[in-house]
């Protein structure tokens, strides 16, 4: 029983990170109708920037992370601006454009930080919580808490603010949105920037749990993407549920199937998606073509 809960807890901790990644995917899809394939690379940039602020500039972790989110959000703005001519014109090319942007970010990261990675010490030095033999590192609790807060803030933003509503209007019908005075380009820019900031948050938080390298975005991006699909692509609560789901499935697969855990995780994912193709909180797909 103890081993069951231990496995569950570690699955939830990583699941929270996947949930943050999925949030970024879902947000950009929900407001722009675009699957952003640069998301994993943006996460990696966020992780590097945050660890640079934390380790080299010696800023407190709680300052380094928001600073990294702002810097990476700016990177997101640049990417959106570069791809803007393709918006509303050729959707597939824009998609490919994001793949290209990801490749550029990978190369830039190696230029700036070299291809060797860096370990990030945990900013929370308190002893792990021990509940009936199940050990929960304090930092993991922090990550889960921050993820929950991010989801709450994002939901409030989308539902209660003008900008949030505008972003969703653009996704539903960009011509009508323009007709009522919404600047589509600016709205998309904000959306992309927030998505990038979420990726940076995920990257910054996952740094102390793992190891920051130029390729870290690849597997985290795939897991987050799968999580977003599982929860319903475009759905904010779906991203959280999907992320936690992938994390927990992966954890239990690792326990029972050892070296084949990745295989099992994605087989389970495939079966679930075949049963319910639109995902758990399945939303109508956004039609931007």
């Amino acid at each position, binding site marked *: 029983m103890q081993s069951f809960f231990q496995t569950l807890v570690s699955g939830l901790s990583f699941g929270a990170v996947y949930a943050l990644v999925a949030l970024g995917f879902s947000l950009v899809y929900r407001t722009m109708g675009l699957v952003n394939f640069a998301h994993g690379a943006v996460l990696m940039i966020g992780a590097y920037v945050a660890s640079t602020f934390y380790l080299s500039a010696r800023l407190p972790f709680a300052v380094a992370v928001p600073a990294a989110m702002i810097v990476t959000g700016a990177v997101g703005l640049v990417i959106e601006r570069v791809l803007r001519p393709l918006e509303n014109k050729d959707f597939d090319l824009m998609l490919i454009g994001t793949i290209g942007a990801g490749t550029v970010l990978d190369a830039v990261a190696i230029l700036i930080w070299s*291809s060797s990675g860096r*370990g990030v010490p945990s900013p929370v030095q308190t002893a792990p919580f021990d509940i009936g033999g199940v050990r929960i590192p304090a930092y993991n609790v922090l990550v889960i808490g921050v993820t929950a807060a991010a989801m709450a803030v994002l939901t409030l933003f989308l539902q209660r603010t003008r900008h949030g509503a505008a972003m969703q209007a653009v996704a539903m019908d960009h011509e009508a949105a323009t007709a009522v005075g919404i600047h589509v380009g600016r709205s998309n820019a904000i959306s992309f920037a927030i998505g990038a900031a979420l990726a940076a948050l995920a990257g910054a938080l996952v740094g102390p749990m793992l*190891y920051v390298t130029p390729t870290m975005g690849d597997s985290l991006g795939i897991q987050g993407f799968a999580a977003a699909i599982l929860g319903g692509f475009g759905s904010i609560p779906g991203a959280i549920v999907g992320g936690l789901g992938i994390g927990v499935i992966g954890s239990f697969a690792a326990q029972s199937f050892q070296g084949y855990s990745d295989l099992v995780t994605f087989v389970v994912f495939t079966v679930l998606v075949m049963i319910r193709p639109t995902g758990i909180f399945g939303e109508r797909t956004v039609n931007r073509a």
Partner: protein
Amino acid sequence: MSRRPRYRLVSAAAAAAAALVAAACSAPGSSQPSSGSTSSGAAAGPIKIAVVDAQSGSESDLGQFEWRGVKLAVDQANAAGGIDGRKIQLTLYDDQGDPTVGTELARKIASAGDIAMFGTAESAVTLAMAPILESEHIPNITSGQSTQLLALHSPYLFLNGPTGLTYDSTLAKYLVTTKGYKKIAMLTNNDSYGAGEDEAFTASLKSLGITPVATEVVPADQTNMTPALTAIRAKNPQVLFIGAEEAQSGLIVKQARALGMTAVIAEGAPAGTPLYMSTAGVANANGTIVSSPYLGNDVSPAARKFAAAYTAAYGTAPELHGAKAYDGAEVMIAALKACNACTGLALANAIRAVHYAGLLGNFRYNSSGVGIFATSIGIITDGKIKPAG
């Protein structure tokens, strides 16, 4: 548009296409006389040697270490006059840690005129490249340590360190015979290095009459090792043997300690690197038992001299992989001097004939390409490796 301009346009395009196809059809570099063949440029000009390693991707650290070690030795040799007045010219190729890219590079360096190769630091890539290098008669000194390399029986392949079996048998002997540990658990990954470690260490334990109390395998890119560690923790081992690369090993230790496991960590070469220590955290890495032929930069005057030169050149202190690469390069340089910059099988035989007292020990190559047959045991104390008492 009338018919005639279009006809001209089409035939011009066809002619251009034909010219392009003709140009592309000549194999790159194969018919160039200046690629170091036996005609006029052979006895003059630089000695071209390739360095093939991961310069990107997750194994790029090892690639960096190897490149620096080789370059230091070659720069020193060139500064001292080179080989009969000829300088050694190194060209660095990125294999991205991918065996397929490695095979492409093997063909590329043959046609570029490189007469020898250093690398790679991953046995999987070296294994893929070895048959091509053998058919192209290019001697290769590699940092890989898998015993599968020996199974190739290539006269052109040489290891610059001991085999994985040597690391693990020395480690097992220390743990069981010297320290008397009985409950030993194993956690390895499923890539070629981890699988090799699993096999070698299990066999070493078996020869000492010990069966591991737990054996877990994780994928090589796994980041959450807690489920596997939870299963191991339940068996209460005294020692946890790890068979994974530097970063993953560090993560394993970090997560094991977070789970409250107090088992002693034991590992081969990866635990001797600064990368392992920074990923695990110094506090968690302390106490790790390391099996390594190069315990540190203070173990001998030669090591101190090497470390000083390396630090002056690169700004960071060297570790095992840089030292192995340096020794391998010194062996190659000694062989080139002995045979007057020969190539092909003659160079391979010259390497085999070299007796070299290196940082790792005394190199004396056998017919399988192994030159070093022992490692030492160290214990990480206060972030540094100290020889075990």
